[in-house]
């Protein structure tokens, strides 16, 4: 039935095509820009100065520089650490635990937990960055509550433990997404199956590991896909909290790309970093999509 062209559509074909036109133009622009990034990455284009007009092709120089100069590999490592601990371990596991713990409960506690976790997620990145850098500073909330009352000297957490603080801030910020997704996932597991396992004597651990997790595997893969892409390319929160510092301790790839492109002005090299990020995201996505596709 659906395959057939409907008369009210067929007589207005041109109108519908005209409706699609703006979207086609903008999608085309996006494709064109993507192509442009690849082209830029083979040039020595710069933001200002002579090479902003009089640039030339430099072949694979920019890509060679990724692996020979300091910076890129360090940033890649920082990004992987940040993604592993804040997104995959932090947000995903905490989101799953919260969803499991609150499954089947109703009432005030659940609402309070949900709303407070959601508030972190709804907050603009820069507000979260301000909150976390202010509360973890030398005179901030954490010192006021946990350090100075016990007579210890205040610690400048945001400077001394920058990467750890950024990771905690991102867990605080992003867990709601995983939580909501896992709530939806757990709702899709029929209660009868859990009950049957309970009757057969499966422990809570066995029920989670052998029944629930395999049943929601596609949800897990979807969740990991989204949060990994978002976290690997995350810029605002970290940049506003630390600017990539102290030194280069929190310089993730997005910050490295921004610094090289717009602070130092090497747009060609910046484009090569962008391409590398696209490749990393692409490889990770393929891995998760395979996980989605595998037969049950």
């Amino acid at each position, binding site marked *: 039935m659906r*395959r057939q*062209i*409907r*008369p*009210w559509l067929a007589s207005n074909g041109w*109108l*519908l095509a005209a*409706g*699609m036109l*703006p*979207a086609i133009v903008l*999608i085309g622009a*996006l494709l064109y820009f*993507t192509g*442009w*990034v690849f082209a*830029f990455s083979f040039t020595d284009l710069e933001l200002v100065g002579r090479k902003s007009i009089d640039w030339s092709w430099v072949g694979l120089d920019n890509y060679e520089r990724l692996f020979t100069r300091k910076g890129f590999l360090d940033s890649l490592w920082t990004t992987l650490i940040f993604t592993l601990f804040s997104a995959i371990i932090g947000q995903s596991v905490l989101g799953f635990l919260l969803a499991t*713990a*609150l499954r*089947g*409960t*109703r*009432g005030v506690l659940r609402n309070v*937990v949900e709303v*407070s976790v959601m*508030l972190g997620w709804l907050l*603009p*990145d*820069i*507000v979260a960055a*301000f*909150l*976390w850098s*202010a*509360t973890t*500073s030398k*005179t*901030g*909330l954490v010192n006021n*509550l946990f350090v100075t009352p016990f007579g210890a000297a205040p610690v400048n957490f945001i400077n001394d433990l920058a990467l750890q603080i950024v990771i905690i801030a991102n867990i*605080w910020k992003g867990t709601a997404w995983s939580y*909501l997704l896992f709530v*939806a996932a757990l709702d899709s597991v029929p*209660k009868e199956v859990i009950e049957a396992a309970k009757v057969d004597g499966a422990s809570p651990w066995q029920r989670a590991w052998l029944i629930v997790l395999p049943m929601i595997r596609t*949800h897990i893969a979807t*969740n990991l896909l989204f949060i990994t*892409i978002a976290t*690997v*390319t995350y810029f*605002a929160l970290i*940049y506003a909290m630390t600017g990539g510092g102290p030194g280069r301790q929190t310089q993730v790839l*997005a910050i490295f790309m*921004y610094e090289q492109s*717009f602070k130092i002005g090497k747009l060609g090299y910046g*484009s090569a970093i*962008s*391409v590398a*990020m696209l490749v990393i*995201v*692409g490889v990770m996505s393929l891995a998760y999509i395979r996980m989605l596709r595998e037969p049950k």
Partner: protein
Amino acid sequence: MDTKPPSRALTIALCFVVLFWVSPFVWLFANAVDPAANGSLRVPTAIGFDNFIDAFSGNAGRQFLNSIYIAAGTATLTVAVAAAAAYPLSRMIIPGKNALLWLLVLLRMLPSTGVIVPLYFSAQATGLLNIFGIIIALTILNLPFTLLLLKNFFDTVPLELEEAAYVDGASLWQIIRQVVMPLSRAGLAVVWFFAFTGAWNEFMLPLIFSRTEAGFPMSVGLYAAFGQNGAIDYGFLAAFSIVYAAPVVVVYFLLRRNLNTGFAGVGVKG
């Protein structure tokens, strides 16, 4: 669903979770209403709204308007362009449609950091390093996701209703306005909200695109204010943060029911 009360250990653990999430907000409000705030947590010596008045006047007020323009402009433009394309995409037989949809899925995964250099370059070349340029750039970046989402929503609108309207003599325009739109209102609201929050939060693009403090949206304005060295005006920053965060939080809770259904759809179909 059974409504068993959670065990005591679980309740205590959940209370800690709440504490972890809520304590920064307590700090934020305590500082925002204290005209003499100094960044520490204390009961305000006096309660006043001076900080909020500052957060709405001068450059701060202009930045609020800039953020509104950018977010509402991006959301409206994105939804209009995407809806006009998603309806034919959902209803018509187009050669290569599946390939097109896969292309959209791939583009949707494309990180915005990946194309920021060409975006900047073409905006510079066309004189669009301003709010209008930010709106267009964000619309381009949002479009693949929005298009996919709306196509999925239009797929769920039953064809039979449109058929009935056609038999009753309705034109295409009437069918779209009086049958399709009312039925996909939830979908449109979700998509509009996503685009609005995305643009409202956006930081990197305006950081690169805006030239003057008067042209900053609130994200860049807040960053510039607390990035400045010297004495930090915690009271002002806290009030400014609340003003900046409030619209998205309020809109979310207004649209909450719609969003949760829409959200589940996004998660599963991704």
